[in-house]
């Protein structure tokens, strides 16, 4: 990598495309939240204001991470993974909130380590692959941290972590039959948990009930998306009250977005993400660093499957899992974690001299 000047906006060569996509996606989130809230007020209880504050914080974080080179990230991977895993273990000592232990209460905000295990796991597996460790051990370590999330319980993040792990194994030099073995192993674990009653009945019900009744929230969100049409209702706020969608500003925000901005809006949203993934894929194919290839693939898998699971939930093709839409859903933890991912990707772009 050639030497770069340090500027106010990080090292010279911050990737503008990446930054613009990040900001536009955040802006889309503000617009959607604007139609859902009672306008903007300078109060942290106001959801739109809160989101704007978190966006600004995340932009700062994005630039801050740009200063950390990939070699340093590689170096700190194991301590980082270890730290998050320990935080995941100690979360079982906290008081449950509504039946789940997912957050550390830090006063103004809640710290949610399962957001960061998504990043830590990608870095961990990438490093292990590059160092050529035994794949079975890698699988067991990954499975251990995933099971910690599973017992919080957090079914959505668990699924996502499994998908991340599987896709990273898939693009490695592992043989297909090893993956099948891994899947079988996971299946056996699942049934052992089931047998010993370690799986929450509530979690099972969520999956099994789906086939009997169509979730009310999903049928309503289908109505909302459908009402949007091609051009959308465009900042319509009265009639949407006739459609009832719980947690509309978080997990179901895509339905509000599609209602207000229609299929054209959806195309724009998809377009931005596809362009982003296209740029990332090009680096994956051209970079010389194995570590960077795996990291980029893992992060892409993480973001893509969050989007897939979220949209599939909102249009009612899979059961409700409670997965936020990255950068669209209301929620500080999610934005901050996504900003970290964007920051690392930005660093990789810089190191590969991709600046526009």
């Amino acid at each position, binding site marked *: 990598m050639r030497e770069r000047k340090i500027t106010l906006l990080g090292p010279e060569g911050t990737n503008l495309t990446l930054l613009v996509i990040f900001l536009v996606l955040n802006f889309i989130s503000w617009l959607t939240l604007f139609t859902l809230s009672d306008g903007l007020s300078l109060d942290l209880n106001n959801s739109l204001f809160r989101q704007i504050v978190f966006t600004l914080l995340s932009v700062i974080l994005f630039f801050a991470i740009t200063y950390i080179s990939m070699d340093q990230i590689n170096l700190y991977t194991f301590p980082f993974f270890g730290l998050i895993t320990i935080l995941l273990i100690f979360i079982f000592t906290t008081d449950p909130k509504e039946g789940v232990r997912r957050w550390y209460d830090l006063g103004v905000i809640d710290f949610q380590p399962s957001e960061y295990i998504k990043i830590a796991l990608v870095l961990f597996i990438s490093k292990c*692959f590059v160092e050529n460790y035994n794949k079975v051990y890698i699988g067991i370590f990954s499975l251990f941290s995933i099971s910690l999330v599973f017992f919080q319980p957090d079914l959505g993040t668990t699924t996502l972590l499994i998908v991340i792990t599987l*896709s990273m194994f*898939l*693009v*490695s*030099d592992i043989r297909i039959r090893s993956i099948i073995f891994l899947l079988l192993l996971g299946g056996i674990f699942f049934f052992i948990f089931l047998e010993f009653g370690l799986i929450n009945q509530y979690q099972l019900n969520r999956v099994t009930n789906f086939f009997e009744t169509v979730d*009310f*929230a999903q049928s309503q969100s*289908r*109505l909302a*998306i*459908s*009402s*949007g*049409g*091609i051009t959308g209702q465009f900042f319509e706020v009265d*009639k949407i*009250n*006739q*459609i*009832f969608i*719980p947690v509309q500003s978080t997990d179901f925000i895509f339905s509000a977005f*599609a209602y207000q901005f*229609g*299929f054209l809006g*959806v*195309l724009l949203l*998809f377009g931005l993400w*596809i362009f982003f993934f296209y740029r990332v*894929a090009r680096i*994956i*194919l051209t970079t010389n660093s*194995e570590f960077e*290839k*795996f990291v980029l*693939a893992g992060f892409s898998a993480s973001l*893509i499957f969050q989007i*897939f699971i979220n*949209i*599939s939930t909102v*249009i009612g*093709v899979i059961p409700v899992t409670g997965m936020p839409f990255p950068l669209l859903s209301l929620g500080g933890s999610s934005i901050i974690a996504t900003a970290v991912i964007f920051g690392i990707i930005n660093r990789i772009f810089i190191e590969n001299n991709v600046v526009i």
Partner: protein
Amino acid sequence: MFFQQKFRLLTTLIGLIFLTLLFNVYNLQTSDREASLVSVNKQTLDTFYIPSPRGEIFDANNNKLVSSSLEPHLFLNLRKINANNRSQYEQYIQYNFVDLGEDLIDEIFESEDLLVRIVNIQDLNFDNRQSLISLEAFEIFDFPVRKYEYNNIASHIVGYLGEPSFEDAKDFPLSINPNIVGKSGLERYYQDDLAGQPTEIIFKDDEIAQIIKGTPGKDIFTSLDIKLQTIATESLLQGIELANEKYETKNKVQKGAIVVLDIRTNEVISLVSLPDYNPNNFVDGISQTDFNKLNISGAFINYPIQGQYPPGSVFKVVAYWLAEQENIFPEGLSSRNQRINCKGSLSFGFDDGSQQVYNDWKEDGHGNVDLGSSIKQSCNVYFWDIALKIWRDYEGTTAESILQQYAKNLGFGTATNIDLPYEANGVVPDRELFENWAISQPERVRPEGWLGGDLMNLIIGQGAITSTPIQVANAYRTLISGNLSYPYINKNRESQSEESIGVTEDFVNFLLKDLNSVTNEGGTAHASFSILGNKVKDVGGKTGTAQNSGDKNNTSWFVGVDSVSNPRYIIATVVEEGGSGSAIAAPVTRRVIQSLREMEITPVKFGEITE
């Protein structure tokens, strides 16, 4: 090793999924759109709110004063009732729940709500419940049941619940949906904390589409001692009974108040108001006649914080403090130990040449009195002399209101800001107030305006001054502790500012000694306290007998301190139309002190008649 080939394959797969999802959305937004718009327009979504269990209320020893529990209730889904099945459901309810009158059943079916609560089915067994919900318009939901464990005791502190009125809805907009609000007491003051978030039942047309569980309210931990509260209530009742026995007055004595404050923290240990009510009677609604009866008796007034009475001689402590602090003593005296000769009356002339005679309550006079003994014997003449001194030295200057300023520094004239609703301010009259009244309420003041006689009235707690029992208790507490702050019941109430009033330790010791003399030999309250035997040497207080206009009997006051060597509690007792403070309020307070100091508790006995 990274496998480019497999990566390309995976990318293609992902692209395909992306396209499928996009196609799905496209279909929804184009071909399904018309049908969706129609069903959106047709669907009516309504929400019914079930209140969450309110926070529970505890006393200082973790006794539960007010509890909440969820019990299953039968509800009727009125959207499913139509002309065809109405009579069938009516008969079913009448037959199964015979306690419900016909009027009530009519009311259920005439309601405009989505769901109507019919009856608590906690005692029905499983089979019966199953057979109920086999009928499609019946639903079973948990509904919170509020129970006031001590019935009438502390009713004014905890308050009671009811449906929000128009005004309530303005103060507590969130109470509209669950349709329940605290009407008084802590239930009202901490309404938003106690109420929690109601459970939402969302109807799509006539079906229940979703239930969003609410969150229960926060518990409140109070500084009250329910055992003491019970004894204080008993004592006040005995005092009231005694007053009715002893006096032949036109009005029946029935109203009174007791306040017990912790001197160090200003926590409210006990707060009694009589007459009281049973908050449990309001839980399922109270009949209009019962409500009116309570209302006429004055049971809804919280006398310790809303009763505004002239304080009478208990107010002398203000002038006592002023005399010491400002060195203002009767003409010719320069210290607390010098005496005047009280002959039972005071005659004096003003600059305008008018001559007046004021008579002390004790016609023969108190003899030679100094500052301390005029508290002990409640001599009026001594304090009138102080008032005259102020008037003659300062009339017409800003300093003429120095007594009022001292009273305000102890909290008179403004609500104490205790955490209970509807607290009264009381009145500390001065020239300015009289001028305002001359315009707004001319019947209350003489055309001459503020005169020296008004100041003389004020210094012995008579005339236009009014104060609430808690103001008086807080004033004594402030003098003894040296800090003005607000009394509070909720232990977790946000921290308060303490304002030093700048009293010296010497002054507090003198004050306690003089308060102690009141309950000892020769003091106005000795008759009521002598039963304590030796221990009387460690208690103290001040009697007050405030005159009322018209044919109302005097207001009986006593402010007691549990111990002069180690003062912990201030007790203020008022019996409306209870006559002499030494005779009624003093023995009531004595009984409360017996409980506070864990002595043997003896019945309230009529004391000596003084003022």
